[in-house]
Structure formats: structure tokens, C-alpha cells
């Protein structure tokens, strides 16, 4: 192609209209915008080796927790006579506790509990937080101010303290509901302790999510396509569903992913303090706290659950970080 200076004429040849050879652009990622949001994110995520390794670890842990207890010859509350206080061996790879319960299967069940707590809590936070934030941001005006005042108050309240208080108060009524009211009986298996944790999470932790969603909505609201949709008479409901949510979904997913380890952390902390799951149910926190009494004579009881919980939180943290970078590349510099 030859361009004559000082003239508008451009001489072209047919070869200028041939498709470019593959790899013409040195960095093919420059074109990520053309191949769609999800695919582009996936490509970015795949390149992040740490995040992929974390994903593999998470999958392994999920298999360990979901399949493990089904395959194990023992159940988590089975007290095997004659096998008390065993150190790790072939029959019991993680050893047994002083009641003769197999620690491997208890760790598996504990991992299951931790994962369930993490995922369910994150979903609760997602639902409450995004609905609240979206309404607040969309409606605006006095409603927004009032709703955000509430968020400010909940935000300034130290949540771990309220969690403890809520937990103590909710335990008994929940226990009553679960054991005596027909409707709630299916929940008995989960246990009142865990239910209380979910409720507390739903009550307290949605504020962070609500703030993020509101910020996003306020930003997106000013975009031209939203104005256009509004001018065409789109209802509020449609605006949220079709325009606003899909556009902040990336940040939402990343925030939810990072919420999971924080919920797991909290549950382990509560169980360690003795107000998490109730015996004989095991959680990684309660297993560690039980093991603390015999730490000098049988440290192995402590090591396995402690290692698993640290690994879970680490893997979720790293994967969440990677996911955030992949879904929202603008955030990466921060």
C-alpha cells in the first residue's frame, strides 16, 4: 500500500484485502475483546498458573470431601472399640482420637462442612447484597441515602462480636425448631449450629457486597445504553435484569469467590472457640481445637485438620485473586 503524501488518494492492491496470516499480531491477546467476555476471561485465567494450580487443589479437596466419606469403611461418629488413640497407620491413615473415631473420615466430613459453609454463606451474601445494592443504586435519592445509612451502621459494627452473640442466642430456638417442628425437620442433619452461622452471615456480611453492587450500578447507570433503554421505556425490572446485572457480573463473581474463604475462616474460628458445629459432628475447626488438649502426646491429630483448612483457604484465596484479575483486567494493577 502506497500513500501519496499531500493527497487523499490511496493506491491499493488486491493483496491488501487478503486475510492476515495467523500470528501477525505479536500479541494475540490484543484481540480479546472480539472473542467474547467469558472466553477472554477463561484465556486470561488459564495463563495464570497459580490460579490454575489453586483450581486443581480446590477440585481435589472437593473430591476428598464429597467422595471420601462415601468410600471410607468408617463413619464419622463411629467409635471403634480397641482402636482408641492410634497413631497414623495403614488402617487409619490419620490416626484415631481417644474415642476410637477414625480421623481421616472425620477430616473428610469436616472439609465437607467447611466447603458447605463457605459456598452457602457466599451465596446468601450474594443474593441479599446484590438485590439491596441494586435497588439502592437504581432508585437513588432519599431511598438510597436511607439504605446506605443502614449499610454504614452494619458496616461499622464489629461483626465477629455480633456473630458470637447471635450464635449464642439463636442456638436454642433453632435447636427447638429443628427437632420439634415438622417443617424444619429435614434441616436436622445440618444441625442448629450451622444454621445459626448461615443466618448470622445473611444478617451481617451482605453489606460489603451491597456497597460494591451499588457502586457498579451508579457507574453503569450513567452509560448511554442504559439511558437509551430507559428512553425506550424499559421497566426497572428489565433494566436490572438485562442491562445492569450482566455488566457487573464479573466483579460479583470475583467478590463471591473471595467471600468463600472468609466464611470458612469464620466457621473454623467459631468452631475453635467451641460455638461452631455441635458434637459429634466434626468440622476442621473443632477437630483442631479438640486436638489442642493432647498436642504434646499426639500432635498428628492437630497437623492434618490444620493443614487441610490452611490449604482450602489458601487455594480459594489464590483462585479468587486470579479470577478477579481474569474477569476484570482493569483491576489488575491494584
Amino acid at each position, binding site marked *: 500500500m502506497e500513500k501519496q503524501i499531500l493527497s487523499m488518494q490511496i493506491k491499493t492492491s488486491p493483496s491488501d484485502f487478503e486475510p492476515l496470516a495467523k500470528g501477525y499480531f505479536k500479541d494475540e491477546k490484543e484481540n480479546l475483546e472480539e472473542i467474547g467476555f467469558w472466553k477472554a476471561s477463561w484465556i486470561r485465567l488459564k495463563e495464570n498458573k497459580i490460579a490454575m494450580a489453586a483450581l486443581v487443589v480446590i477440585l481435589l479437596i472437593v473430591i476428598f470431601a464429597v467422595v471420601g466419606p462415601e468410600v471410607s469403611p468408617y463413619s464419622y461418629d463411629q467409635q471403634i472399640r480397641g482402636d482408641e488413640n492410634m497413631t497414623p497407620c495403614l488402617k487409619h491413615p490419620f490416626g484415631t482420637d481417644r474415642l476410637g473415631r477414625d480421623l481421616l473420615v472425620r477430616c473428610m466430613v469436616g472439609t465437607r462442612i467447611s466447603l458447605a459453609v463457605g459456598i452457602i454463606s457466599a451465596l446468601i451474601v450474594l443474593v441479599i447484597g446484590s438485590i439491596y445494592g441494586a435497588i439502592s443504586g437504581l432508585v437513588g435519592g432519599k431511598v438510597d441515602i436511607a439504605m446506605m445509612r443502614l449499610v*454504614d*451502621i452494619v458496616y*461499622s*459494627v*464489629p461483626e*465477629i*462480636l*455480633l456473630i*458470637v*452473640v*447471635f450464635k*449464642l*442466642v439463636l442456638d*436454642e430456638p433453632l435447636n427447638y425448631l429443628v427437632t420439634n417442628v415438622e417443617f424444619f425437620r429435614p434441616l436436622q442433619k445440618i444441625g442448629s449450629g450451622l444454621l445459626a452461622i448461615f443466618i448470622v452471615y445473611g444478617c451481617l456480611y451482605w453489606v460489603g457486597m451491597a456497597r460494591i453492587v451499588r457502586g457498579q450500578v451508579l457507574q453503569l447507570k450513567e452509560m448511554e445504553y442504559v439511558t437509551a433503554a430507559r428512553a425506550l421505556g424499559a421497566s426497572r425490572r428489565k433494566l436490572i435484569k438485562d442491562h445492569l446485572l450482566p455488566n457487573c457480573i464479573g466483579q460479583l463473581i470475583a467478590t463471591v469467590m473471595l467471600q468463600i*474463604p472468609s466464611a470458612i*475462616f469464620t466457621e*473454623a*474460628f467459631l468452631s*475453635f*472457640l*467451641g*460455638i461452631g458445629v455441635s458434637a459429634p459432628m466434626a468440622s476442621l*475447626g473443632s477437630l*483442631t*481445637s479438640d*486436638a*489442642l488438649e493432647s*498436642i*504434646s502426646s499426639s*500432635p498428628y491429630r*492437630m497437623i492434618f485438620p*490444620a493443614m487441610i*483448612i*490452611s490449604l482450602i*483457604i*489458601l487455594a480459594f*484465596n*489464590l483462585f479468587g485473586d486470579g479470577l478477579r484479575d481474569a474477569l476484570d483486567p482493569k483491576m489488575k*494493577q*491494584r
Partner: protein
Amino acid sequence: MELFQKIIKRVLLAVFSLFVIVTITFFLMNLIPGDPFMSEKANPEAQAALRAKYGLDQPIYIQYGKYLNGLLHGDMGNSYVLQKGRAISTIVTESFAVSMSLGIRALILAILIGVPLGCIAGLWKNKVPDACIRVISAVGISVPGYVIAAVLMLLLAVQLRVLPTSYNRPGGTVMPIITLSLYPTCYLIRLTRASILEVLNQDYLRTERAKGMSERVVIFVHALKNSLIPIITYLGPLTASILTGGFVAESVFNVPGLGRYFVSAINSRDYTLIMGTTIFYAALIIFMNLVCDILYQVVDPRIKLD
């Protein structure tokens, strides 16, 4: 003047939050069935007399008013279970002194280690030191406090026997302080690194370089100074995390601090003590958040308080 108004608004919000906490805690605690004298072996009349003595026979709103009034005078009632009849305000102030001396040392340790490491990581982005520091901080943030406490106990006290397991012996404060400071240290590393990276992208640094200022002055005088400002905001959450970390560290290492009292109050269901401790902690955290919000506003006028 505008700043002054904002600060007033902030203070009012803090006071209101504290009031909300007091109210929620009070009514929740009173929802729990039973009272501290149920377990008393004394006959019903003696129980009734005790209830009357402590005002538990009155309607709840009067009890609430009395409690609020007491709080304003620094009176949080008495412990009924753990330390029978002792004033909670005494228990709290005595044990908090222990917690605070540990907490402040942990905080200083966290700042002394976390901020420089974060700076190094930020300035050598994507180089070997950065990678090492990032791995360490990612792991440090993921390991729950009780695991750290247990590992330290196992390694230093049980296996190597270099430190005593009991808090009272010389060197007994080392392990609690390390436990307390690990999470804040790692969090500070990440925060400092992110903040440095953000400042390094600023236009004014480019201008300074273009004007021929030496790299040393650019980094040490202008970049570092500005990137350390946002760290002030973490001071409030830092206090909170050291306090909650105290629950675990003090229980594991048997430190007679407020955290351990809180945990044993929970386990023995000493509701008045739980209530008093919760309110005290909440007041402390809200106060620290308030202080660092205002400090941040004063140091960096670009920030809007709302």
C-alpha cells in the same frame, strides 16, 4: 469548616452504631431463656430475692434503661458465673491491660515487618524478592490464627523446648505476640505493595523524573510518603483483627487477657460478662475506625468522608 462538619457527622454515626450494638446485645442476651440464678440450689424464695436484688424481676425496658444508665457511668453490672459477684468493669479493665500490652507489641511488630516488606515487593515488582514476599504473605493470610498458635506451640515449646508453654515464665510472651502479628503483617505487606504500585503509576512521579530528579529522591521522598497514607485506614481493622486474634492466642497460650475471658465467658454462658466484653470491644473498634477515618481525612484532603 466543611471538614469539621464531616467529622461531627462521623462522630455521631459512631455513637449511634455503638448505641445500636448495646441495644442489640442487650435484648438478644435477654431473649435467652433462664437467668443466672436458675442453677442456684437455693429455694425459690431465695432465687426471687436474688432476682429482686439485681433488678431482674423488673420489666425489660426498665432493666434496659438501668443498664444504659450504668454504662454511661462505666458500670456494666456483675459477673454471675465466672467470677461470682465481681464487677465486670474491673474484670475488663484489669484483663484488657494484659491484652493491650501484647496487642501493641504485636501491632508494632506487624508494622515494622509488614511495611518494609511490602515496599520491597512493590519496588521490585515481579522480581525474585517480590515473588518470595507474595508467596509468604498469601500463605500467612490463609493460615488461621489457631493453626499458627498450635504449630508454634508444637515446634518451639514441645519439640525444641526453647520457649515456655506458660505465659508467666520469661519469654512466654513471644509466641502469643508472633501469633497475633502474623495475619496483620501479611495483610500490611499486600496493602503496602498495592499502594506503592498505584503511586508509581502517578503522573507526578513521571514529571519529577522528566525534570531530572534523582531516582532516590523520587522513590524515597515522594513515592513512599504518598503510598504510606492509605495504610492509615487499615489501622482500625488492624485493631479489630488483633483483638479477635487475641481470643485464640490468649486461650491457647493461657494469657490472662480479655480475649481469654471472653472465650471462657462464652463457654460458661456468663451472659453479663459476654455482654460487657462485647460492648467494650465494639466501643474500642468503632473508636479506632473513627480515629483513622478522621486522621486519613486530615492527612489526605483529596479523600471524601462519606
